[in-house]
């Protein structure tokens, strides 16, 4: 056990160093887009974004209940607590439609991102 505990921090250090490299690139400015969740609905439910560009999506959950922003097409999933705002980086996306939904209210909470 002690041997293992001794090894784990080393693994973490090397993992962290690896991870910190691209983090510097993440600081560069990206276009910001906003989506609100209100009464388990996304607004706007269709968001047009530039294709082939990385964007920063801010999802404001104005409901008191949490929601999980999820999209199979975008490979994204993130829990957003009631009254909280979440940051989700998306793209660069090829031209096309990318549906997303709220996993906790999948019937009502639906939308799509249109990259053009």
């Amino acid at each position, binding site marked *: 056990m002690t041997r293992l505990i001794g090894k784990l921090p080393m693994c973490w250090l090397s993992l962290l160093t690896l991870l910190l490299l691209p983090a510097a690139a993440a600081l560069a400015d990206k276009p910001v887009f906003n989506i609100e969740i209100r009464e388990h609905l996304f607004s706007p439910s269709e968001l047009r974004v530039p294709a082939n560009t990385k964007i920063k999506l801010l999802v404001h959950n104005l409901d008191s209940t949490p929601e999980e922003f999820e999209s*199979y097409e975008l490979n994204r999933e*993130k829990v957003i607590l009631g009254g909280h705002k979440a940051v989700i980086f998306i793209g660069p996306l090829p031209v096309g439609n990318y549906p997303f939904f709220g996993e906790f209210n999948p019937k009502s909470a639906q939308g799509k991102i249109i990259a053009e």
Partner: protein
Amino acid sequence: MLLTSVVIIIREVLEAALLISILLSMCRQLRISQAWFKWGVLAGLLGSVLYGSQMGAISQMWDGVGQELSDASIQALIYLCLLYSCRKLLFYLHNPHPAGSGLLSVMGAAIALAVIREGSEIYIYLSAFQQSSESRMGLYSGSAIGLGIGFSFCALFYYWLLSFSPRRAVLLGCGLLSLVAGGMVLQGCKMLTQADWLPDGQAWDTSNLLPEDGLPGQLLYAMMGYEASPSPAQVAIYAAAILLMLASLLLSYRQGAKRLSSETSAAE
């Protein structure tokens, strides 16, 4: 509400329960104590409540990508725990000694972390939606059905693995756990991509062939983190993680076998 709850709970429960059933079944085969398991689950449940209730604060950390980074760290830790556990289990396959506390605590940690990852989301979901009385009935019955289906599936899996000889079961179990561990890495990379710590992109797209939201897709997701359109970075790190695990297990298997043959020749 009912159907939504069933789907959410099954999706969360399957992953953790699959990992638990494979580990437990291998321990049974190797006559290793299974008492550690309940402590792992207990720690996982406590951790779920703690992690789930702090999710708001965690999400705000690191410029709003705290949730992604903590999730990815948990997944990386599970990978390391499974790598260590499989190596040890392969060793005990050839050298049946009483298992050391190292293996037992690492297996317990793997289970606790897996339960925390899935349990925290269930905690957030249940604690938020149980406040409205109209949905409470659907929420609870849906969750109970989801739990039931998830656990029955894993009980079947547990007994299926017990039906093999110990040697085959351990080899099969280690193979399956390699897939589970690889899935953790794949999903961890997805989180890092979402946090913009890894570059995004599309290596291929199999969503027409095997959609992620279909039943086989969901099962594969629970088992090995299936992703219909992974990014090149995800694929590269996944391949490296799987290769590292398989090479490490092969080495451990051969060392164990060699030690066994030298011990038998010494006895003669």
